[in-house]
């Protein structure tokens, strides 16, 4: 599995062999922008990033509880599900990896409890760490040390999305509930177990962060391997906390499970960590079925949302809208379709395509399983771009609610900035189709391009490599065609 906590320092000593990762060009941002480095090394960095968001988040909860019950008049709905979602999927994840996890208020209280410090560091000893930490500090159960919980949790949550997307009070229950679970888990389990293994928005951020145009990595992995005995990035020091996400930077080769908290930048004694700019889709490895299924689930959900929320079909919207329509049979059909598509249908098609790819390539030693998992990376740029294509109309059509709700966040008839009465006015809605077409074709291109890059790590011969991706490539094209049909056809 991709996210084995690298908690043991011994394990970290062996050099990464045959990673299968494609090495790419990158620019050292800390070197280019010294201020950025200074800022990230600053101990108050994380606190200052999170605190305003915590205040805003608590205000949203208040608005959800006491404000208007009409979704598009309540700031919790408009800001969280339209504005935040849009920013997250179209900008933060593709351009800045898991930067949201720096800003996210969910782990605030839990982390505070574990550290009993908001800014300073405590040195000492806790487990393998060089920091003093509070709480029970248990290890997360091995059987759950993967993203299956997040896969299923997110799917379950999204089955009922029509509820919390439109009802402030249900949004409060969902968001408040997650906040509570994040806090309570921190009493028992070490560091950010919630973020690594439970948080429903963690899994897809990790998956899609592989496409991101930035990465945090060791400047020279040789230094980590040969010179550094203390591995303070993982274990902490008097300058920084041990990685809350259990990452050992010396071997970290993907963005998936790095929350960009910058503790390692502070604790590395060799000043060997930096943030780099890199081309789109820099990480190309999917590791394990849990991550493949995340890709399937995200794709299925994008399609289901495109049908339910952006489609013309009232019956399907009624099925999803259980709170008002109370058609349990309809909800059953709806949920059944979602779960079947995400967990069985897409994976089955993918398995078939992988098997055909193996046959076409004609190399026996490379298993269908390997092709299945590795090539499922193709669905990462594909799925991300499909989500972006889905999210643009959301903001172009409902963006004016952002402007009006900011003046009247609780829907109480206030007019703070004089924009409360701005009429609903979609922004150039008739042009969204062109944007969506470009986004989807761009996604298909990257799926194929990276699919080929990956196939070259499996096959020596370029023609075998190309043949091996033809079936999965065709599946990708069919998926893109389906989205085009929904959005523009």
């Amino acid at each position, binding site marked *: 599995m991709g996210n084995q906590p690298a908690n043991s320092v011994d394990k970290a000593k062996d050099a990464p062999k045959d990673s299968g*990762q494609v090495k790419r*060009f990158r620019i050292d941002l800390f070197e280019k922008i010294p201020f950025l480095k200074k800022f990230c090394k600053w101990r108050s960095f994380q606190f200052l990033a999170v605190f305003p968001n915590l205040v805003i988040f608590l205000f949203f909860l208040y608005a959800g509880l006491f404000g208007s019950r009409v979704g598009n008049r309540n700031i919790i709905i408009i800001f969280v599900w339209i504005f935040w979602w849009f920013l997250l999927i179209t900008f933060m994840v593709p351009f800045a990896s898991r930067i949201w996890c720096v800003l996210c208020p969910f782990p605030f209280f839990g982390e505070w409890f574990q550290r009993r410090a908001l800014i300073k560091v405590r040195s000492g000893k806790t487990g393998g760490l060089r920091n003093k930490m509070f709480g029970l500090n248990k290890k997360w159960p091995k059987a759950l040390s993967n993203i299956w919980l997040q896969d299923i949790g997110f799917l379950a949550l999204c089955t009922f999305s029509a509820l919390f997307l439109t009802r402030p009070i249900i949004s409060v229950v969902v968001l408040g509930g997650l906040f509570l679970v994040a806090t309570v888990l921190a009493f028992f389990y070490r560091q950010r177990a919630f973020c690594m293994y439970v948080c429903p928005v963690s899994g897809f951020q990790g998956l899609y962060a592989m496409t991101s145009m930035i990465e945090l990595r060791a400047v020279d992995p040789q230094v980590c391997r040969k010179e550094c005995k203390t591995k303070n990035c993982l274990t902490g020091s008097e300058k920084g906390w041990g990685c809350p996400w259990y990452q050992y930077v010396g071997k970290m080769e993907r963005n998936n499970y790095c929350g960009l908290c910058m503790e390692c930048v502070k604790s590395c004694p060799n000043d060997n960590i930096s943030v780099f700019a890199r081309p789109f889709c820099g990480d190309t490895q999917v590791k394990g079925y849990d991550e493949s299924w995340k890709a399937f689930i995200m794709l299925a959900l994008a399609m289901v949302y495109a049908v339910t929320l952006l489609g*013309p079909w*009232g019956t399907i919207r009624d099925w999803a809208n259980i*709170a008002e329509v109370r058609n349990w049979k309809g909800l059953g059909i709806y949920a059944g379709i979602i779960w079947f598509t995400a967990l069985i249908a897409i994976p089955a098609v993918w398995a078939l395509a992988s098997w055909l790819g193996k046959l076409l390539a004609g190399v026996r030693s490379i298993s269908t399983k390997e092709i299945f998992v590795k090539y499922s990376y193709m669905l990462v740029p594909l799925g991300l771009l499909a989500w972006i294509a889905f999210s643009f109309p959301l903001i172009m059509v409902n963006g004016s609610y952002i402007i009006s709700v900011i003046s009247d966040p609780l829907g109480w008839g206030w007019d703070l900035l004089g924009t409360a009465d701005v009429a609903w006015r*979609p922004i150039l809605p008739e042009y969204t*189709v*062109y944007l969506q077409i470009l986004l989807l074709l761009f996604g298909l291109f990257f799926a194929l391009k990276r699919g080929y890059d990956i196939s070259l790590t499996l096959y020596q011969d370029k023609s075998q490599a190309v043949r091996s991706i033809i079936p999965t490539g065709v599946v990708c094209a069919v998926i893109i065609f389906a989205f085009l049909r929904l959005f523009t056809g």
Partner: protein
Amino acid sequence: MKARLVILGIVIVLVCALIPPLVASSSSGGGEKKEFFIKARQYAYDPPRITVNKGDELHIRLASLDVVHGFFLEGHDIDAQIEPGVRQFKLRHPSEGKEFTDVNEVVFTVEHTGKFRYRCSHTCGTLHPFMQGELIVCPNYPFLAASGGTVGVLISTLLVIFLAGKKHKDAMPGGDAQ
């Protein structure tokens, strides 16, 4: 070598994208009078989708089956408000002003092809922001071109990477496989 392959790839995509619209443009049609009666309810329109030809003259009547709904037609400067139980509805052209006038039907000729959504523009309940239907004006050039483009991207990417195969080390942004 590399630049030539990229150009080849782009040409393939463009050719594939052009074929379906060219084929479709030869089909005749349009210029007819077409009548529709669209009923709004929480949170959909019936019919959910209407298909016409470029040049058709549309006569649309609107009614609501439950609460007050809107009818905002993308790209056509049409916005209506529909009250339940009333035969007439209120119509305005947003670019011309905010005032509504009572009408029996909205009449216009479709000049642009593609997909245009009609959406509810009057908050009518929880799923209001997602209440929408579709007007398809054939031939749907954007969709046809995009479909051809999909095939084009598939063929050209596979072909170009195959031809560039040996040179893939420098063709990829920055590097080779470890």
